[in-house]
């Protein structure tokens, strides 16, 4: 016991314990700080397919309108081909896209626009009339 009385290594032990504790506390703060950087909003900005959907809408509202004066059979034939091409084109991007017109009167037609990817599913049904646009 007497030998211990004069032993000062325990004090060093305590001292170094405080140092280690301080370092650990600092590291934990640093770790928490690293977690602050946001990632979700940037992911959103990257994955949302605005242009892909817009392109489909342009086809549905404007490109198909060019055939409105065609006969019913020609109109359906042409729009059906467009639909096939769009599906093929979008399939190469790993998504499903389609613009399919399914009725036609003298001045108007109905068209369904569909886009489906892993993150986004879009469906719109438009009724477009010559000179009056789409609703």
């Amino acid at each position: 016991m007497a030998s211990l009385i004069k032993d000062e290594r325990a004090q060093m032990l305590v001292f170094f314990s405080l140092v280690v504790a301080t370092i650990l506390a600092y590291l934990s703060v640093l770790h928490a700080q690293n977690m602050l950087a946001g990632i979700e909003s940037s992911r959103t900005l990257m994955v949302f397919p605005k242009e892909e959907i817009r392109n489909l809408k342009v086809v549905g509202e404007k490109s198909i309108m060019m055939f409105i004066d065609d006969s019913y059979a020609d109109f359906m034939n042409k729009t059906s081909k467009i639909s096939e091409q769009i599906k093929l084109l979008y399939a190469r991007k790993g998504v499903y896209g389609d613009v399919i017109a399914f009725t036609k009167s003298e001045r108007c037609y109905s068209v369904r626009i569909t886009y489906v990817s892993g993150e986004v599913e879009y469906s719109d049904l438009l009724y477009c009339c010559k000179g009056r646009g789409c609703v």
Partner: protein
Amino acid sequence: MIRKFDNRGVSMLLEYLILISILSVFVFLLSMNINKVLEESQIESVVENQFSDVASEVSSQIVDSLAVYPRNGYLKTKVFMPESIGDIEYTVGLENGSVVITSELGRFQKTLSLGAAGILKLNLSGQTHSLAERHELNYTKISPTYPSAVLKLKPAAVLANYTTPGCFEVDVSKSSAMGVYNWRVELWNGTVITGDSGNTVTEVCVYWNPIEFNNYCYNESGGAIGNTAWCNLTLTVTDIRGLNDTDNATILISKISEVEPGLYIKKFVNPPQTEPGRPVELHIYLNGRGFRTQATNLSVVTVIDTSGSMDDETYYGNFAGNVSPRVWEVTYRINSSWKNSRILVTLSSPDSMSPWWDGYDKDDAFVMDVYQADGDYYRVIPSGWSNELGSANGIYFYDSRVTNSEIGNWTFRAVVAIPKSIPLELKLYKRVSGSWVLQKEFSTTYHPNYYTQQIELPSGYTDSDQFEYLAAEIYDVYKDDFFAWLDSDLCYYGGEYGVCRTGTVLAGTHNLYIAPRFPGAQQFEGEFYIQKLDSAKIASIDFIDETIGEGDYVGLVSFSTYATKHVVNSSPYLPHLTTDKNNVVDEIKDLDEGGWTNIYQALAYARDILLENTTYTNGTLPLIVFMTDGRPTCKYLGGDYNSSSSYSCSSSVCGSNDQICYNQIIPLAEDVKNTTIGGNNITICTIGFGKPDDYNADLLRDMASYKPGSSEKCFYEAEDYQELSDAFEDISRIFRIAAKNVTVRDVIPDDVQILGTELEISGSANCTDVSLSSFGTDTMVSFNCSEIYIDDEIELIVRIVANEPGTYFLDLPFVSNVTFENYPFGAAYNQTVYLDVVNVRYGGSERASVRIE
């Protein structure tokens, strides 16, 4: 034992233990707060930032959705978020135009406003928990354009009996919806007819069934169904979203034709509900309803002039156009070797130019302009034998001496009038030692420009479908510039090019070809003609087809020097009247022209036919339609008017201004008009055909009766085929007036903008244009129709738009109305119908919705 004291209060061990203990307490106390210092304060920062991040993500998704928003559909997007933030679970919700994130115990909350987009454009709702398997933003928007059902019945009244059905069209074509729609019409008896927007018209036929009608229909006058039933039909239109609209209409079913005519009036707005800023149409629809204004059936005698002047031409149609000639241009240098030489330039074609120039001087097809180097210009036009090549089809240019100033480039511009491609040759000869020696030759295939006009001669109007002739003439001012061909025959008639007249010609399509003759020719205009009698056949047969219905009698008198009663019925009791109009049509087809104009005998014969056997015609409305193209040229000498010896015919026998014949014919006409058959006076309608001086308008006007319910004489003047057809058509309508002096007024409120108006008329109604006028702060839309005939359809369409949400009433009570004279017409029969109150709803609540889940 003596204790030795030192400076130490405690031993080293105890000191160590005390210090450690104090330190331990201190560390313990410190550790109590270290969690707050090292964890919670950090979590607060983390939560603040990551909640913001998640809210930003949701906000971004919503804004992106707005960028590609579906007008009528949905957009689903996945939302990614950590299961916990700082070991805290949380919920994300949409409310009050904001994205709200709340920690599980509510300690932390983050709200991110979506601004105007969220408040004005979207209905936000929903909530998701961070531990949910997946998170989704669901944007949906349904178009507020609601379906509109509009049911029209054509005609709105039908005759039906036990064996013959009355048929009418159920027309739902004016209905509308967002995209395709299905429709369903339920008849009064529960029968259902269905269809879709690709098939909007269907025919319904109904037999007279008093039991059914008494059960399911009604009598407008009250009481049990007698001879007429009013039966309701209900239309339901359903769009692809399941939204629907209904409309009703009433069909008048009668087994007798003595139903007073009237007006069917309907007002509707299409679509009835839409979004602000989108135009809608206000419709006011009028339909002449009924059968005939008087009597059960007609007895009609058509009297047709077949005098010699009916062989004259009458206008049938016109043609006009522009065609620039194809010019073949050749430039050749006349060098000094030509100096003082004679030059001959020929333009020719080795083609036979058949069939276009067969039988005519083919050289006349060629024209050549010659531009010499010194600026002199010559146009080579064949005339007689002048400038014409004898050995070939073509023309030539000759210059006796090429002067020094003419040395240089010569340009030749050639035009050939022919409606087919032909080879062309241009040759230049020089006179050498008394012979023409070819110096230069050019050739080409000439593709001419020409104009083609088709003209249709209708079949079913003449014997064997043969018309007496078809003529065409280019107007004089253009005649020299063009050649014309009718089918493949060159137009050359009466010594004049540009005029043609075929012999007997078959009904069907015929072609007129017009080819320019000169380089500068461009514009032309001209007319087609057919024989007057042929045009009278078309107009009268159309009249019979249009006017004569089931149970009507029809007969025919033709006249020239003498009148002829045509036998059209095998019955010995009624040989000159028939209900089979085809017999009369066949007789009309066989008519030939030639002779004087015996109006007296023709009128007497027409009367005789109507009186031939009144057992049959009793109760019918007797009508004589009298058409002539000439002045009377036969005088009645007295005695038996059936005898040919009772007439003297010549161009002067009727005296000055036909007064002698006038004094004979008018008393006869008065006698005829005063003759009654079953209580109905004979009505005479007269038509003067041709130029005003050709016939005696005063005579025909005085012969004519007044139109029913009118102070206007039933007299028409027709200068050409079209006017003759119009006159016959008008006569066919005089017993079919549904309403007179119709005035439609409606008021559009000032908070609705009028984009335009349109008046659609189907039938023969005479209506003015739509007028707009101020009515206080509002706008009155109105138009008038002097007459609306049975089965006519008149539809006023007013395109309007409102930019603010709300319900707009398109009506002003007691001002929006239709006033008209009802049958039997006149001031005493004025009627006012107030228009239905209709409204259009501009919806503001139909915003898109965004839901997170």
